[in-house]
């Protein structure tokens, strides 16, 4: 599927030098949320709150909940995690390849200003919904301690020297293997030449990243009033989520990055919440069993509440003329609308902040879903990329208007 063509020039033109900083955060849940507990019955601004949205009612005018959305032609259950932010169907055959994700498109064009063009995070393991323009998944960072160190701790002088050394010699290694790859390219068949091109691109990109890191390494990292985090029990999914979210807030606030994804994978931890006895993934296959549904809801209550806390914390940080929340679109979504049957339609969608006139509950057709990528187009435009299309999104989302 084609990605809208966009030159660097246009991208720059889209962000005027004095334009306010715009940001995008995506939180994706590998197992979705129980639709009955999430979606309000009534559409519009005066919807009656659902169970999960209860703790977010003080933020009613600062987020939109949308039902009846999904990516067209994206199926395959868990495998659709790859499509959450790319909207590209990944076939079973393995020959289909992925395209760039919405966060990486932003990072590619607008990410040069910060130490980290983007951050790709998860609450455990390395699965992420972020894909490069060569269709490769970007492995996620799941350790809050590592993330904190990357963001805020300057390495010791000795470590700095070692790193600088590694980068310098790494750059010359890149030169050498680049030369070797060029020779190899003459020997191989046409199909493999494309393959080597992707290798080349990676060599050049890595070289560029190393050069950038060399420059940033000379600048001290921002200081924050927070002790290096002690990671919670890895089973404590919501604790991990909250800890990552508070680090993400600091990363945005210090302008260390402007584009972040956080993935909550479809793992099977036994979440330490009173009343929860079985693994998260096991519970997601509830088979309509009342007891399992109850336990699952206890976990999901907290996932949504933690999202609400994040919006509140962003709203509490004031930049010139607006709060951090007004400048940050915070998406919460999933590849699954019903994890019990691996159904990829009617996925949960919450969009907070970002300078939109929030619309309450946008209720789309549960049978003929609205393309989720339309929402991506709205977000891309609002964040400073003047694109008209993204993947299966052929325009902005109906019913969601920007404030300016």
């Amino acid at each position, binding site marked *: 599927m084609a990605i809208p063509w966009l030159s660097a020039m246009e991208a720059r033109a889209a962000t005027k030098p004095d334009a306010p900083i715009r940001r995008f955060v995506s939180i994706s849940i590998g197992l979705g949320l129980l639709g009955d507990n999430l979606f309000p019955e009534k559409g519009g601004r005066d919807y009656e709150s659902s169970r999960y949205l209860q703790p977010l009612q003080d933020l009613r005018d600062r987020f939109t909940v949308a039902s009846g959305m999904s990516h067209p032609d994206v199926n395959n259950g868990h495998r659709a995690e790859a499509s959450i932010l790319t909207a590209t169907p990944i076939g079973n*055959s393995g020959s289909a*390849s992925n395209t760039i994700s919405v966060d990486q498109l932003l990072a590619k064009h607008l990410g040069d200003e910060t130490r980290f063009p983007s951050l790709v995070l998860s609450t455990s393991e390395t699965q992420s919904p972020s894909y490069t323009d060569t269709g490769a998944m970007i492995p996620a960072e799941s350790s809050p301690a590592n993330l904190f160190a990357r963001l805020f701790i300057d390495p010791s002088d000795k470590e700095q020297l070692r790193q600088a050394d590694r980068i310098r010699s790494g750059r010359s290694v890149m030169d050498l293997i680049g030369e070797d790859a060029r020779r190899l390219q003459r020997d191989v068949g046409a*199909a493999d030449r494309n393959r080597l091109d992707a290798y080349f691109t990676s060599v050049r990109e890595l070289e560029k990243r190393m050069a950038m890191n060399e420059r940033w390494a000379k600048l001290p990292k921002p200081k924050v009033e927070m002790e290096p985090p002690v*990671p919670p029990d*890895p089973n404590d999914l919501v604790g991990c989520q909250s800890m990552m979210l508070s680090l993400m807030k600091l990363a945005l606030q210090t302008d260390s990055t402007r584009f972040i994804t956080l993935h909550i994978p479809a793992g099977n931890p036994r979440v330490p919440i009173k009343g929860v006895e079985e693994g998260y993934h096991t519970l997601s296959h509830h088979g309509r069993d009342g007891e399992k549904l109850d336990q699952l809801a206890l976990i999901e209550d907290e996932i949504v509440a933690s999202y609400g806390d994040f919006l509140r914390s962003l709203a509490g940080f004031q930049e010139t003329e607006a709060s951090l929340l007004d400048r940050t679109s915070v998406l919460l979504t999933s590849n699954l609308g019903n994890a019990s049957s691996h159904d990829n339609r009617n996925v949960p969608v919450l969009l907070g902040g970002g300078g939109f006139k929030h619309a309450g509950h946008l209720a789309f057709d549960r049978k003929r879903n609205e393309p989720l990528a339309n929402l991506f187009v709205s977000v891309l435009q609002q964040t400073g990329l003047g694109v008209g299309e993204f993947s299966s999104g052929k325009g902005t989302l109906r019913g969601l208007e920007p404030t300016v």
Partner: protein
Amino acid sequence: MIPCVDQPAPRWIRVLSDCRFVLVFLTAVLITDHAHATEPDLESLNASVLGDAPEFVRENCLDCHDGPDAEGGFDAASMLQASFRADSHAMHRWIRVFDRVNDGEMPPRDAGDLEPESRERFLNETRQAIEVTLQADHRDRGRVIARRLTNDQLERTLGGLLAIDLPLARMIPEETRVDGFTNIAAAQSMSHYHLDDHLRVVDHALDFAWRKASKEIQRSVMELPAERIANKREGQRNRDPEMREGAAVIWSSSMAFYGRISNSRVKRSGWYEITLNASALNPPESGSVWCSLRSGECISRAPLMFWIDSIEVTEQPREFKFLTWIEDDHLLEIRPADNTLRKARFRNGQVGFGEGEPQKVPGIAMHSLRLERVFPGGTTEQVRERLFGDLKLKSSRKGIAFGRNTTAEDLKREVTRFAAAAFRTEPTAERIQPYLDWIDERFDGASQAPDLLKQVYRAILCSPRFMFFEEQPGRLSSHAIANRLSYCLTGRPPDELLRQAADAGELQSSEAIVAHARRLLDGPHFDSFINEFTDQWLDLADIDFTEPDRRMFREYDLVVQNAFLEETRRFITTLIQENRSARQLVDAEFTWLNGRLADYYGIDSELETSEWGKVSLADHPHRGGLLTHGSILKVTANGTNTSPVLRGVWVCDRLLGIPIPEPPANVPAIEPDIRGATTVRQILEKHRAQSECASCHARIDPPGFALEHFDAAGRYRDFYLTRANGKYKNAAKVDSAYQLADGREFDSFTEFRELAASDVENVARNFAAKLMVHATGREITFADRKVLDEIVEATREKQFGLRSLIEAVVVSDTFLTK
């Protein structure tokens, strides 16, 4: 095969050089010269390849399959309008049409009678068109694009090159698995993130080898007598063992980390040989207690534990040995781990000295424990030889130093040697020139030489020649064959003998290839092959993806789970080693068990304590064949309930070789409902009533229903469980009677298995297909179908023995061509 043309010609012309097409081809050229890409052109171009097949589709399919709202979401009209040769998507759809017509599903019977001649003609024309086009494409571009070493292959390749053994694959993000396989070239993407990870792994391996070579890393031994295994004074409460009658004791209990041995904490990550002397306390009637050995930090904020092994201890003390990797700062946990044992209860999350004794539960008594750090990858001398060859080393306080007279030429000699091994191909001057030039440019005396050498090695190990399989379109070179063969059957680069054979160009004869294949299968790395292949083909890698519901499956535990894996691996090993028929994949009269698994399955056996044995299943008709292995039953369920659809699809795809097309996009998955009001069977009846679902489910459901006799934890059942008042009770009776797609009926699981096994050609073909994917890094294409048929025929005489099938695969055209 297609006759070759002497003159180089554009690919599409060569496609048409098959004499059958020459006439139409001329017409096509005339038309294309004048007008591009208008409809009539494409149509006649397609007709030039497909003959009358498009006409057949127009007459027989368009009534229902026309336009975006076509039945089953299949628009045949748009297929006719796409270029058959240029558009791989169109080709894909033609294959789908071919398959549906071929198996008689389309056109539907109620659409009127189809003349057999017209059907035959369509099938022949379409088959030939697809084959010719694909073969030409495979010949020019190769069937598979350059494939990268998988994470596991990278680990073993670096290990072999440097004579080290490190769990490097863990340092790289897991690969996407396509239908189980991690090595599918088309699914391997490349980004600077990946390259950065790769560089990190290479650095880690090189640093380790360098330190090993400089003798910084040494063997170490930890001896723990019972008094040191125990770590609990009278009056103290913790989760460590306590002393009792001269032994360190842990009682049966469900408390997390009870059994941690604080004094076994290791300072350095590495391989350890563990020797444990232990006996049983208060064993149950069987006389023995099953225990587990694991390593980990053993604290609640790091609950991840690494499985080492299970042991069966008896009242008579016995010695056990294990070889395992342990991370630094991790310690051992040794405890009774049999969920059927009675368990002691303790207060407040700790176990006080003497609190277990009066509860009279089973326990383990440990008499001595020894941990020795070992280096299975190679000795220090071997590492030095791999890194430095003939270079003279001198002792130095700062790591590695070379003799004062070391020259650039010396380094270049070693780099040439190292690169030849790393690139796994002919070490031509052209291939290594940039690396030699680099040394000439930078050589600055002997004192800097070690650093320079390391830098060049670093680059060599990041080169695409190292990371990718180098294969040229057409018939593979001897080196490329050696690589395919070795990575397929051992998961690592060719050994010395194979490399010599490749250097001598000996691998162009089938006899030579088969001889090496046999040698490798009998060699020391056969287990790697079994583990890697079954992890992917049979999804054994997913064994701990879900945790069976503890209330439903009280007898299930980690000892059982790991025994599941071992059973299947040993079973496949036997089938291959003894060249048993592919039929036994489905229906076998034996399996491999240890005492714990035999109990779990309810099979009486006389097994040696703690040992595995091959057990006859003559008296246990419900077991036998992969379908009845706990491993398979577990990975095809979700931990709680079973879905006939998911299991059915899995069995068709992985075992029986019954193709199941992708479900139509607009049909919802059935939502399992275990409340008892409706059975899965009833829901599926409804589902099948929809015509677009019926044809696939006629194939999916039979194995799915037959396997309903096995629950999500692999036990045989006659009743489903239902939950009432907090307890599980028997509810509906399992009904496995059904019929195959071709109408043959079965009354029970065993009858189904009998029918499935009788189709041995398909099972054999499927096994060969999976091995082909594993060996080549690409899923089976239409052009491979003929090759697979030939492979199956070639092994008929040997009753489709698995070993014969492997040998036939590695000398097939598909295997020997890029």
